[in-house]
């Protein structure tokens, strides 16, 4: 009997998850990520493998092409090759002192690809028959075969002894790597990895069900094959059919939205040496080298889990999660996206399920509150007061104070924005200097002689376009809709629409609308959500006088800044019924009943830190003061152009992307610091208002009647 009891007790102790015994049996060993500085003073072209298998970087500088090999003490320069002709090489392949370079030369307004081979430090064209393809990647195999691959999916194999084309493969535009006299490539069509023999040109093997995402890298260590993408790093060993996950993407930088893996386009690559993986990825600022080394003393899975729920995917959140995990290796951040394609639930369903969890004292540790009932959660005590943390960060000069001040309620702050947008308008100073309110703007456009003083939109489009700068003024002290103010808004929208509204009976406006629909989708255009790029040339050549838009990151508004320079214009607050409005975004809240409050607060701190905020070139303006100051201070050379056909005339247009000038950057910083009210729309209310305004949008109801109807409709909702 005693024995039986003891056995039962032992089983119970072993089964109990929090027991010390169980803790000691945690599986150990994990690949740990670190970043490695790339060689300085050189423009890195690609990461490759030296003849002895070590990681090698090929780069170019004024001295010509150079190779650097990674050893224990860092990068060692191992050689300098000549300089390819015409232009910086698009890609380079080297093996046993033979180097091939791929360059492009402009001929008759077209860029023509050339492959060159170095001979005694001098590159010469070898006139390969590229068959009309535009390769971007070169690889040199052990048997002397040269492979030229294009992103479009053409892979050409040449014999380097005779410089003749041996094979041409179609549908291979993804990742590719070599092993001996064979090559492996990702087949996006079949979601497989194919293996071809370079001697015979025949398909040797096709590995199905590969965890391919479209942004993949392949590498081989002579035996195993490795596949990397944002979901992680996988390995398949000879004779096996299952891909083994070595590293979970969400525990590394690979899942960062700012990290791009695109083998053929950006020459990101992966090499394996002595069991350590090296990945060269692309970021906004250029190449970035990551190392994954196996650490037997690290827990296989982090000890703690911090859970986050969000309605929709948010790149800034993923960014923050990745940085947080790096700073806190004991934590794993799990992000649950409640609304995704195929989720089969509405936002209401998702919130209802979340509410049930919250009421039961459960729920995630952190909530990304965009689209959720923030004010309700704040009032009901669901969220933890972040004011001590925010005050501390604010006092240390870390935050843009003005963005946080309007969010305080009775001295407490329950939601912290991680980015924000500014509703602005740009145009010529003489046009905009007197337009402070929406009525002023309506008057201005009615007096203007320009073809369409504001971008062409539907009435609903204008309603949404000016909404952020007016919405906060619509409600009285009791929270009810102020009918008079709302009617005035609708009257101004009416007036603007009468003067500038799109009229599809006119051919050029029809073409403009159709092109816009093709580019942005009908909903965005009608709702005024899409920043419509065709409006910019209209402003540049004086066909319109102002362009209203939501200013997010500097990368987002790169074409707008070019236009602003071209017209020597000004950027000012969007005229509306409220003043100096900003739209907070990426609102983070901490579940007051979380069992990991300290970790959750540390996560919010990370999300607001320079490490995370500095990574965003788009998706909103940073709320970190130091990042904002650094943005104002530092110039970035954006060498981007966008060519398109003018939808009205059909003529070719080139839009150049420009980083804003220092005065503009400083002005944006000042505007952020002057913002004093936030646009935090209630989606249910907006939906109800738009639904009730259907007749008004169709022109069948005047502004006053529409305001009355809306007021009656939303009264119940607002009194709940």
């Amino acid at each position: 009997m005693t024995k039986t009891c003891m056995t039962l007790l032992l089983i119970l102790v072993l089964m109990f998850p929090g027991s010390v015994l169980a803790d000691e049996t945690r599986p150990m060993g994990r690949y740990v990520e670190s970043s490695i500085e790339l060689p300085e003073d050189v423009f890195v072209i690609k990461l490759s493998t030296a003849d002895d298998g070590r990681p090698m970087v090929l780069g170019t500088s004024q001295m010509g092409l150079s190779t650097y090999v990674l050893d224990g003490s860092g990068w060692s320069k191992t050689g300098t090759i000549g300089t390819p002709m015409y232009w910086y090489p698009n890609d380079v392949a080297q093996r046993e002192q033979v180097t091939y370079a791929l360059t492009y030369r402009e001929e008759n307004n077209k860029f023509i690809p050339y492959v060159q081979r170095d001979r005694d430090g001098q590159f010469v064209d070898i006139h390969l028959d590229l068959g009309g393809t535009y390769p971007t990647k070169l690889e040199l195999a052990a048997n002397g075969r040269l492979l030229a691959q294009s992103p479009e999916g053409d892979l050409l194999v040449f014999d380097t002894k005779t410089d003749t084309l041996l094979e041409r493969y179609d549908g291979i535009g993804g990742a590719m790597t070599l092993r001996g006299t064979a090559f492996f490539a990702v087949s996006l069509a079949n979601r497989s990895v194919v293996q071809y023999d370079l001697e015979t040109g025949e398909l040797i093997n096709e590995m199905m069900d590969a965890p391919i995402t479209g942004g993949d890298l392949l590498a081989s260590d002579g035996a195993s094959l490795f596949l990397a993408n944002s979901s992680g790093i996988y390995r398949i060993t000879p004779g096996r059919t299952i891909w083994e996950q070595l590293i979970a993407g969400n525990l590394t930088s690979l899942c960062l939205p700012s990290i791009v893996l695109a083998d053929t386009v950006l020459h990101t690559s992966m090499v394996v040496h002595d069991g350590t993986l090296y990945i060269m990825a692309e970021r906004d600022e250029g190449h970035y080298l990551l190392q994954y080394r196996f650490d037997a003393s690290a827990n296989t899975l982090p000890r703690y889990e911090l859970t986050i729920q969000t309605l929709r995917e948010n790149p800034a959140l993923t960014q923050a999660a990745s940085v947080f995990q790096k700073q806190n290796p004991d934590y794993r951040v799990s992000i649950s996206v409640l609304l995704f394609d195929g989720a089969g639930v509405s936002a209401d369903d998702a919130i209802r399920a979340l509410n049930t969890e919250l009421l039961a004292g459960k729920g995630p540790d952190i909530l990304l509150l965009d689209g959720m009932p923030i004010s309700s959660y704040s009032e009901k005590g669901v969220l933890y007061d972040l004011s001590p943390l925010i005050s501390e960060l604010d006092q240390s000069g870390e935050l843009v104070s003005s963005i946080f001040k309007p969010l305080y309620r009775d001295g407490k702050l329950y939601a912290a924005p991680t980015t924000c947008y500014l509703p602005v308008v740009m145009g010529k100073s003489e046009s905009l200097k007197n337009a402070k309110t929406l009525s002023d703007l309506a008057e201005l456009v009615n007096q203007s002689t320009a073809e369409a003083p504001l971008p062409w939109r539907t009435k609903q489009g204008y309603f949404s376009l000016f909404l952020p700068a007016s919405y906060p003024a619509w409600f009285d002290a009791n929270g009810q809709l102020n009918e008079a103010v709302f009617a005035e808004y609708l009257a101004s929208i009416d007036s603007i629409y009468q003067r500038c509204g799109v009229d599809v009976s006119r051919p050029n406006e029809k073409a403009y609308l159709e092109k816009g629909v093709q580019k942005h989708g009908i909903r965005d255009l009608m709702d005024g959500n899409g920043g419509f790029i065709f409006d910019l040339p209209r402003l540049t050549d004086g066909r319109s006088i102002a362009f209203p838009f939501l200013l997010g990151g500097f990368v987002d508004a790169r074409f707008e800044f070019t236009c602003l320079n071209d017209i020597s214009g000004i950027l000012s607050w969007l005229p509306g019924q409220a003043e100096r409005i900003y739209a907070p975004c990426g609102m983070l809240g901490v579940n007051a009943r979380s069992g990991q409050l300290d970790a959750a607060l540390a996560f919010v701190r990370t999300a607001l830190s320079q490490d995370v905020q500095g990574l965003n070139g788009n998706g909103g303006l940073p709320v970190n003061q130091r990042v904002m100051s650094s943005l104002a201070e530092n110039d970035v050379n954006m060498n981007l152009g966008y060519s398109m056909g003018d939808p009205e005339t059909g003529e070719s247009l080139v839009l150049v992307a420009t980083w804003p000038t220092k005065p503009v950057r400083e002005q944006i910083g000042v505007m952020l610091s002057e913002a004093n009210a936030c646009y935090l729309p209630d989606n249910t209310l907006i939906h109800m208002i738009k639904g009730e305004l259907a007749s008004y949008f169709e022109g069948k109801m005047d502004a006053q009647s529409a305001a009355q109807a809306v007021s009656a409709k939303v009264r119940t909702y607002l009194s709940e």
Partner: protein
Amino acid sequence: MSKKRRNHEAANVLFMLPSITGVALFVVWPFAGTLLRSVQDAMGEMYVGFENYRRVFENEAMRLAAGNTLRFIAVCIPLLLTISLGLALLIRPVKRGAGLFSATFLLPMAIPVASVALIWQVLFAKQGFLSALVAMFGGQPTDWVNSDSAFWVLVLSYLWRNVGYDMVLWRASIAGLDPTQSEAAQVDGANAWQRFRYVTLPALLPTLFTITVLSLLNSFKVYREAYLIAGAYPHSSIYLLQHLFNNWFMSLDMQKLCAAAALVALVILLLISVLQRLWERSEP
């Protein structure tokens, strides 16, 4: 008490135990929780007394929802009882095909609510069948479920769905009546109305109580149609208590939701008690 009797009573209790446990676990306990939360704050952490009840009484949306719900009940229940009784009496003399007739009226109950909502949308949308019919006669197309007519659409929906069920209940009750009383009254010179008014109707009163309570409870189910047709914020005339409760849950206003639920339970209890008292008083 004899041993046999005690055993008999124990057996009774044992037979009732599963049911009592179920009711206690899934009705009484949650309702006690509701009552408790009605005097606490939203997250159930602090006692606030009757503050939630005060806020519920002052709430404009609550007044609208309660008013609409009462109006709906006041209009629908008499109409339903009358129509279903009328139909039951109408087919009373029919010997062949009466079952088929009743079954036809029961069909709406077998149709899923989502399908019913779809049918109403096809019928009552601005581009729907009814508007097209009105337009044929020179009228203006109307979005019937988003106008003042919405209330009557909902009444129609409720009647269409429930009339068959009530009719079956009436028929069962009528079939159980002793025909000799009516025949005697006829011999005494009573006409058809007098026989109905003074013989049949008093005999049906016990059934009236049951059908009224069932119809009252069924009337709360009409929210599903209203929600599926017009969403969480329908036209103000069909904004019912369940809309408000659902929306309060969405905004985590659990304290108000529980207070209002307790009030509604109290009103229903009072209503049923009054009906029961009336029935008992009218019993011979």
